């Protein structure tokens, strides 16, 4: 696959604060690439630099051969942005929102009308066509943001936490639509703090923390490398740690204490399973490893504020 985005030594500072600290990454054409990280990790700042609404402090980004910060209008013309915040035009109806927005991309009126009708159907908002934005639910607003981002038939879609605050139905609908677009060959960039979302959508991802990239890879590969296949959680007082680590440690390749819970990470859970039954501990959970474990291991299990 061809590289569509190449970022080198990308840095962004706001006065004293360094939000992004010299990161480099490559995004391939047609893949879904995720930026994972807690609040303030620099994900949104990074994608804002990609689609040219935030000037780059230093470093470079090439988007499909175009230089960010220089060819801004061209990059924006080929990009669809699903923003984190709901930035719909409250004074206009659903239909008008789409039609007015298509003007900004120089889409001829007849074509704009055609795409608007198609896209409103694509996000299942036909019934709300002539409603004002204030009459929509949050889920509907987010769906309209997806439709709006597709008006210019973008080669690149940037979805910045696209499902924040949605109920499961609305969330799944948005995931399905994004997967559909990816299957049609669109490159997708996703920022999220929902691990399930990243696991559902991303081919490759980076975990960001404090403006740096901690790890890069596919979700499966990251889980395997960092955690293994399975996780055992034991809710028990910390005094028991030495004893449990001596007993269970040989079956795991890592352990971690966080709050009231002791975690063991293992590649093969059968050994530890047997031992657990022997020890007959209350309050244990034995489950497959997830991206969330990777995330928490890398960025720390304590609260980030």
């Amino acid at each position, binding site marked *: 696959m061809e590289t569509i985005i190449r970022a080198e030594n990308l840095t962004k500072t*706001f006065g004293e604060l360094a939000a992004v600290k010299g990161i480099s990454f490559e995004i391939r054409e047609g893949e879904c690439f995720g930026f994972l990280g807690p609040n303030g990790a620099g994900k949104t700042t990074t994608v804002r630099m990609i689609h040219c609404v935030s000037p780059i402090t230093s470093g470079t980004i090439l988007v499909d051969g175009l230089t960010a910060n220089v060819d801004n*209008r061209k990059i924006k013309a080929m990009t669809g942005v699903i*923003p984190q*915040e*709901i*930035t719909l035009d409250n*004074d*206009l109806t659903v239909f008008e929102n789409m039609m007015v927005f298509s003007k*900004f991309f120089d889409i001829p009126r007849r074509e704009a009308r055609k795409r608007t009708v198609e896209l409103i159907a694509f996000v299942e908002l036909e019934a709300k066509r002539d409603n004002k934005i204030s009459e929509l639910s949050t889920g509907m607003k987010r769906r309209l943001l997806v439709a709006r981002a597709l008006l210019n038939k973008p080669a690149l879609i940037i979805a910045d936490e696209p499902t924040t605050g949605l109920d499961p139905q609305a969330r799944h609908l948005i995931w399905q639509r994004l997967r559909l677009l990816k299957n049609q060959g669109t490159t997708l960039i996703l920022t999220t703090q929902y691990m399930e979302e990243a696991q559902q959508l991303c081919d490759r991802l980076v975990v960001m923390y404090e403006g740096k990239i901690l790890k890069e890879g596919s979700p499966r590969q990251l889980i395997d490398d960092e955690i293994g296949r399975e996780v055992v959680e034991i809710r028990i007082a910390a005094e028991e740690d030495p004893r449990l680590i001596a007993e269970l440690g040989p079956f795991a390749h890592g352990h971690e204490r966080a709050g009231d819970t002791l975690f063991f990470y293992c590649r093969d859970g059968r050994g530890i399973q047997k031992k657990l039954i022997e020890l007959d501990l209350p309050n244990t959970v034995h489950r497959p490893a997830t991206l969330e474990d990777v995330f928490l291991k890398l960025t720390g299990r304590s609260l980030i504020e």
Partner: protein
Amino acid sequence: MMNLSRRSFLVFYRNLVSYKRFVIPTLVGSLVQPVFYLVTFGIGMGAYMGEFGGKTYLLFLVPGVLISSVMMSATFECLYGAFVKMIHEKLYDSLIATPVSAEDAVFGDILWGAFRGLISGGLMMAVAFFMGVFPVSLPAGLLLGLLMVLIGIMFGALAMIVTSYAPNFDFFNYYTELVVTPMLFFSGVFFPLDNFPAWMKTLAQFMPLTHAVEISRAVYSGVYPKSVIFNLAFILALTAIVLVFGLGRMKKRLIK
């Protein structure tokens, strides 16, 4: 570095589409105020004032009030209107994610402010028309339209500078109470500046409204004193400066 394009007019168009929902209330608002000024000052007070250098008071008053209504409309649109779009509705954020640049978006809204000013001024002219006051000729009337757009752009851009610094709505009070309102009373809109002390006359020369009113009066009456050139130069220079500065400031605020 300015990055202005024809896309400003697309932003203007967006405002036009949304305006159709507010057109009646804003027209009523724009109409009531001028009628109020003209009736109270023009007819009520004018009755006691006799002639003003060979003109009726109403003839003196109309060109001034017309230009101040342009100032008011453009100013409020670019203060409150722009602030709501920037902070509450995040409209600029969605605009600048398209090929529309920050400068396009802001200039489109300044043009919009000027258009709102033109509507207010135009209504004012129509009301004055029914009271028997009109520009000296049809071309003069059209020239007034152009003047209103220019003055609207100037005050719109000035207001954008204020908006670019504003942390909240209350901040606008400094500008409206300390700059706009004094300007309304010390720019020779309601009475000539002749009887003011010298320092006040000098101060008035620094107020853009003073110059705008002078030009408006000249165009209305068809009598152009030599000083009109100076008035126009002042307005053009100030418009250019505040436009460049206002667009630059707003860009800094919008693109971080």
